[in-house]
Each structure stands twice: as C-alpha cells, then as structure tokens.
C-alpha cells in the first residue's frame, strides 16, 4: 500500500470549514509541492496528515494507515518541520537537544538518549551538513542554519514522509539552494516530501507534483501542467504572470517577492 491518498476530505477549525472536497493520491516516494495564498489551508492540510486535525468527513490513507485511527504509526512514519515563526528563539537550548527531541519524544519515560539515539541524531545533522553545530546554542545560529537543524529534527526518527511548512521563509537564496539539495538527498532514501510554499519557483523543477490549493484543490499534476496562466488565474487573479523558463515556467504572483 505504497501511496498517500485523500478521499473527499473536509476539515473545519472551530466550526469554520477550511478545507473541502480534498481528493488526490500520489505514489510513494514522491516530491509534492503545495502552493496557495495565505489562509488557503496549506498548514491545515499538513496537520490533517499528522492527525492533529480530524476531518469532518472523508478518508486519509498514509502508506496504509489512517491518522485518526493509527496515530502512533503515523508518528513513526511522518516527520514534520513546522513553520519557524512559531518557535521560541531566545530559549537557551542546544542544537543536540533540538535534534534529540525528534527521537526522544517517541520513547517511553525516562527519555534519556542511548548511544544509538545520539548516532541517529548526528546522522540527521550530517544530512543537512550541520554536524559541527552539535554543541552550539540554537538561538546563536543564523536563520538558515536553524532551519537546517529543524529539518534534521524532522528526519532524526527516519520517517517515510517528511512534511515541511514554508521552510524558505526569510531565508537567503544560497541557503535555499542548499536546503533543496538536502531534500533531494532525503528523497533518494525513499522518503516522500510534502512541502508547503507560497513561492513555487525554487522548487518547481524538483517537484514530481504540484498542488494548487485554495480551500479546495484547484489543480494537481506535473509542474508543466499546473504552472499555466489559466490555472493560476483562478487563485491569484489576472495579475499573475508566467515566464517561460527551463526546465519549468517561472511564476510571479502578488505573493512572490522578486
């Protein structure tokens, strides 16, 4: 059952309907980029996959498991890199504490790391080339380095699926390129990657699929099929512009800062 599938899923928060009629399926592993304006429900979609939000109706299947009924399996299968804006930055925690968090949280009490746990945490940091920061204080790192550490935390438990929420916010271009390279590396280990973004251009070339989301799925398909004016106009209105690029078209919306 190597697929991720949503069937007619509706999700509400505090009685307000946020997502409706979400139906799609992907093979595994895949690289899916989810694009949409602010408030489109992108974060909500990720939280539904994690089982943090329960659908009002419809069915979610992740590699054979349902987030509502199999939360423990889902936690083992899915790694999550939340939007960094919500993280308390001036807390004096060390990088190793952050990465080990991803491993220890699934252990029973007392949660003290075994040598194996430490090796796994180091390996996760190695993947994002941040091993040198093991004993550094998290808040002393640059924004891009912090993001890499959070990605390491997300993969420390060796998940099959990695969800990332706006990982490129406030991050410079060269770090973006690095992170994309790391994601490539992670996917080559048979990990599916779902990445939420409001700027598609940096990742359209490596996406297997792009989903345009605005409360419902406006389009989902290969980059060249989705990144077209007729499609994007439905969400961004007539001020969306598309430039021919290689290998993928370049999209400029009101949201994009060029």
């Amino acid at each position, binding site marked *: 059952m190597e697929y991720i599938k949503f069937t007619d899923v509706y999700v509400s928060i505090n009685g307000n309907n946020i997502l409706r009629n979400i139906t799609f399926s992907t093979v595994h592993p895949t690289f899916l980029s989810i694009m949409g304006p602010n408030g489109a429900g992108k974060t909500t979609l990720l939280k539904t996959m994690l089982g943090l939000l329960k659908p009002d109706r419809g069915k979610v299947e992740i590699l054979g498991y349902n987030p509502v009924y199999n939360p423990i399996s889902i936690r083992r299968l899915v790694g999550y890199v939340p939007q960094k804006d*919500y993280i308390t930055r001036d807390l*004096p925690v060390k990088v190793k504490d952050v990465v080990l968090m991803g491993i220890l949280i699934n252990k029973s009490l007392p949660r003290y790391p075994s040598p194996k746990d430490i090796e796994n945490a180091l390996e996760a940091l190695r993947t994002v080339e941040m091993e040198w920061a093991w004993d550094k204080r998290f808040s002393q790192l640059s924004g891009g380095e912090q993001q890499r550490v959070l990605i390491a935390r997300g993969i420390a438990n060796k998940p099959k699926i990695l969800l990332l929420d706006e990982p490129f916010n406030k991050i410079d271009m060269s770090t973006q390129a690095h992170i994309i390279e790391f994601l490539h590396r992670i996917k080559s280990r048979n990990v599916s990657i779902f990445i939420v973004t409001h700027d598609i251009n940096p990742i359209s070339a490596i996406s297997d699929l792009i989903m345009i989301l605005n409360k419902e799925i406006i389009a989902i398909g290969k980059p060249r099929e989705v990144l077209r004016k007729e499609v994007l106009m439905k969400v961004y209105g007539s001020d969306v512009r598309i430039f021919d690029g290689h290998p993928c078209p370049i999209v400029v919306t009101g949201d994009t800062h060029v």
Partner: protein
Amino acid sequence: MSIGGTLAFMRGVPYLPGESSHAALGGVSLAILIVHLFSIPMDPLIWAVIFSALSSLLVAYAGRHGGAEALNAALAGAMALSLAVYATVRAIVPAELRALIDTYLVSDILFMTTLDIMQLSLIVLVGLLILVAFYHELMYICFDAEGAEAMGLNVKFFDYLLFLLIGVAGGIAAKTVGSLLVFALVIAPAATAREISTSINRFILLTFSLTVLLGFTGLFIALSIDWPPSGAIALLTSAVYIITVIIKNIFYR
C-alpha cells in the same frame, strides 16, 4: 521557587510568579476570613498554594483559548481580584489576623515555624520530582509547542503542568519572602541569569544560585545595618540585574 522563575521565562510568562503569589495573598485572606467568621480551622499556607496554583491554571486556560492577549488580561484580572480580596478582608478582620495576612505580603523568613518549613519542603520536593521526571517534555513545549504536538506529545497536559508548577512556586514564594518581594527574589534573578546563560541547565542553576546568594547577602546586609530584609533584598537583586544588562551591552555588542 527560583525554578518557577526560570520556567516562567521559558514559557514566555515572566510575570506569572508575581501574579500567582498575589493570588496566594488573596487565598490566604479568604482562608483567614473563613477562620474568623465561622471558626473553621484552615491552614493559610495550604490555601495560599492552592490559590496561586488555581490562578496560574486559570491564566493557562485563558492563554490556550484566547491567545496571548487573553492570557495577559487574565494575569491582570487575577492580580486585581486577589488584591481586592486582600484589601477587603484586611479591613474586616481583627488586628492579629491582619498581621498574619500581612506576613504573606512582606514576609520575614526568620519568623517561619518548623511546621511551615516542613510543609514547604514537602511541596518543593514534590515539585522538583515532577520537574526532573518531565524535564524534556517541559522544555519541548516551551521551545516549539506545535512541533512537539505533531511528534505526539500531550501538549495540553504538560502546558497545564508547567503553569501549575509556576503557580505553586508563586505560592511558596508568597510564604517565604512575601508576594511584594516575588519580583525581587524570583523574577529578577531569572532575568539576570537569562542574560548570561548559554544552556537550559546553566540557566536553571544560575537562577537558583543567584536567588540563594542574593537572598542571603541581602539578609546579611539588612541585619548588619538594621534595615528591613525585604527592602535590602529587592534593592540588591534589582541592582544586580541592571548592572548585568549594562555590562552585557557594553562588552558583548
């Protein structure tokens, strides 16, 4: 107690220990009023801790349901209410009970009874055990509650637990140093320690050492020049905090 200050800073609610110790004051006042009116024996210290813990949980509830704004409103509201209770009860009861209430406003460590000290030690011990057992969990929710929840942590439970610990610390502080001094002896050392610490362990340890060191130094100065201990301690901890900030800004820019 000083750990309560550290936790409060980590969770982003530095004024909570102060508020909850004022709630303790309200709780003590109520307990004493009941003792006075109905002559039901009630131990003021227990009620101080219960009220400070309850008020802290209330603040946590407001924060969870209405965000940071509701949290701050609840903080201010709970503080105002307990002060109102304190002022009212103080006006009603006879002088010797009034004096008892006031020991929770400006307390004198030197006047604590053996029973007080035993009760306090027990509460502190239980609090420390909880803290050691759930150290990682509490740290995770302070760092990134959303990520912790996604990884399967019962964030709601631990958040309330955290507020409970801070509240209890506030209640204990009201008994040991008086609620007026909580800022001086709980919040100021934690603020100072945060300026100069590079890890959580050091943060907690530094706060603790600063509290003890400054508390005793203040007491010593007070006794030797015949000042009120509370005033001396408040002056000392505030001065140390201000000097730390100044030094840090000059040398580490």
